[in-house]
């Protein structure tokens, strides 16, 4: 594995415009640290695959700059230490799994002996050893993903870019791919995952970025992203219709006197605060009125909640439609951004 100093990926003001109209990326600033699993998520057409393709020299950037393993993006030399699994890959169907991994290693310029050793070990790692001599045309989607992952790792990369790696893979396979990602991180490699499967990203990623309409809406660790959004849930051991009466007595309305939000869901009261001192009087009031409290627990928004927040227009409350932003949308979008901030 190639070792490099600095960040694995560093992008500044990266932009891509297709033709004159479609602005797929609009000044993306992104930093991926070495040795972390980084997740990139976003709705359809947000520019995730475009971003990956720019990193892999498949697409040329329109503006901005960046480095990949310390080398300028868009240069072939930057690709020596990179592994890549494209989203809609179409590997030659006449090759066997072993031949595909070996072929990929050859294109990466790896010598024969080393290539053979790595091919066998990677096929073992992705659980395809028994299918190594079967042609790809006979593989299922999940099996193709597994050998695709093996071919992405054949050059012993310092960074692996995986575009929807669990697409078409069964739950067991997904867990195995997550484990592989974790193992790669433990080996000091950087893993960059582009996926729609938020729960999986949540499980495996150290840091995340949400891309919306070609811009990074937010990025950081999950804790950083949910900072200030911790809630307390108070769950009563009564029927939901009776719980409502207790809640009306201790916390009427939609906000506490101190301003925090109140949400009611069945037998659960959710308080929009991270301060235990705010929760205590409510809790005491419920107990004094004879309610049996089953649980009191802090809760934080899921990645899905964050994602929905990111793709929801706060002024209209509507989720943004799929696809990149066009120039015609620029002016209204900017006006919207002003209102949002």
């Amino acid at each position, binding site marked *: 594995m190639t070792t490099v100093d600095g960040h694995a990926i560093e992008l500044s003001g990266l932009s891509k415009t297709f033709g004159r109209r479609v602005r797929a990326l609009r000044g993306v600033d992104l930093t991926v640290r070495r040795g972390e699993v980084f997740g990139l998520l976003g709705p359809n057409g947000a520019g995730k695959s475009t971003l990956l*393709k720019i990193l892999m020299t498949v697409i040329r950037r329109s503006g901005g700059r960046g480095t990949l393993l310390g080398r300028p993006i868009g240069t072939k030399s930057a*690709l020596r230490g990179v592994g890549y699994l494209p989203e809609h890959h179409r590997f030659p169907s006449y090759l066997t799994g072993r031949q595909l991994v070996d072929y*990929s290693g050859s294109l990466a*310029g*790896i010598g*024969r002996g080393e290539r053979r050793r790595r091919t066998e070990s990677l096929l073992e790692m992705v659980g395809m050893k028994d299918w190594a001599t079967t042609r790809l045309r006979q593989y299922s989607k999940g099996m193709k993903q597994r050998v695709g992952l093996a071919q992405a790792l054949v050059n012993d990369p310092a960074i692996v870019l995986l575009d929807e790696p669990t697409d078409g893979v069964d739950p067991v396979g997904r867990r195995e791919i997550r484990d592989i990602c974790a193992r790669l991180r433990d080996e000091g490699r950087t893993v960059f995952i582009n996926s729609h499967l938020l729960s999986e990203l949540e499980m495996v990623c150290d840091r995340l970025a949400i891309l919306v309409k070609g811009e990074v809406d937010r990025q950081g660790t999950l804790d950083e992203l949910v900072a200030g959004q911790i809630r307390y849930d108070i769950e009563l051991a009564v029927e939901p219709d009776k719980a409502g009466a207790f809640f009306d007595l201790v916390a009427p309305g939609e906000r506490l006197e101190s301003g925090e939000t109140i949400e009611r869901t069945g037998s659960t009261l959710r308080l929009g605060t991270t301060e235990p001192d705010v929760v205590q009087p409510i809790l005491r009031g419920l107990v004094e009125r004879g309610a049996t409290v089953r649980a009191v627990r802090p809760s934080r928004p899921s990645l899905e909640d964050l994602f929905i927040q990111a793709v929801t227009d706060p002024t209209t409350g509507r989720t943004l439609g799929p696809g990149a932003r066009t120039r015609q949308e620029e002016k209204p979008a900017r006006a919207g951004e002003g209102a949002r901030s």
Partner: protein
Amino acid sequence: MILTQTWALTVAAYRELNAKKLFWVTLALSVVVVAVFASLGISDVGITILHWEIEVPGLNRETLPPDQFYLSTFVSLGIGVWLTWIATALALVSTCGTIPDLVQEGSVETMLSRPISRVRLLLTKYSLGLLFVAFQVLIFSAGSVLVFGIRAGVWEPRIFLAVPIVVLFYSYLFSICALVGLLTRSTIAALLVTALAWFGLFLANTADEMLLGFQKVAEARVELRQQRLHLEEGMATTELRRRLEESQTLPEDWAPTPAELDESSPSVVLWREQVEESQSNAESLEFWHDVAVWVKLVLPKTAETIALLDRELIDPERITVSQARENDRPRDDDERAMMLGAERTQAALRERSLAWVLGTSFAFEAFILGICCVIFARKDY
């Protein structure tokens, strides 16, 4: 690294062809064609096919020596029909997917994400398509050399010239196929447009050869009619002199004016008109042939490239002389003009320079490949 990558692409190209089966089908058909050659022979009365002898008037060992018979058969049938048309069509079907497959979504990302330059990737893929054809022609030529050696006792290594010549011919078409494949990403479109272009080149070449043939026949006709006119003028002058000398004495250097000749002999008028008519005809044909040549200038010379093999292998003197023995003498000037025109056309075609045949074709191919490289190097996938 470059060698490792190139070898990997070569092995992958072989596996792809192997998977398509057409590679082996074409090779098997080549062996069949060589076997057909082996079954042919020439005897004292005609040609032989295995044990059977077919009598052909004017065709025997004397008029066409066995070595020339086999070389002619190799050039006209083996190259002219099998390799130029059938094997080329099969090769196009086999290889037309090379570039479209490379740029297919899902495939191109994997290839471009490796540390190999786009131009090198494209040109390597292109060259591997040609390598397939070279291998096919090599097998066919080796089989042919063996057949000629065993059947005619002639070991003719020049037959291997077919390898570079047929590959060159194929490369012109394959460059068009590559460009269309790159632009459309469609194997079918690449195949169809290449077939159309091939047909277009065939038409251009046919037009060139036909117009050249007509022009040469017309020029020969002008010459023959001029000879006839001179003859008629001589006869008319003698007759006029004889008539005038009956009443006066003419100086030695006396010569009639054209008007006097025309007045004295209707034949002179007739032949002069025919000379003028054929001259006008020849000039018109020369103009249209020049147009065809200018059009062909920018196009690859498919037929002429293949004809280079004919030039190299066939000795025209031996065939022309032997055929001439058998042919009847021409009955009139028109037949003579046709024969002269045909001979001169063949001579003119054979005299065309390598710079014309190969230089302009290379220029076309380089231009098309240059466009391919620019497109592939700049395009977003």
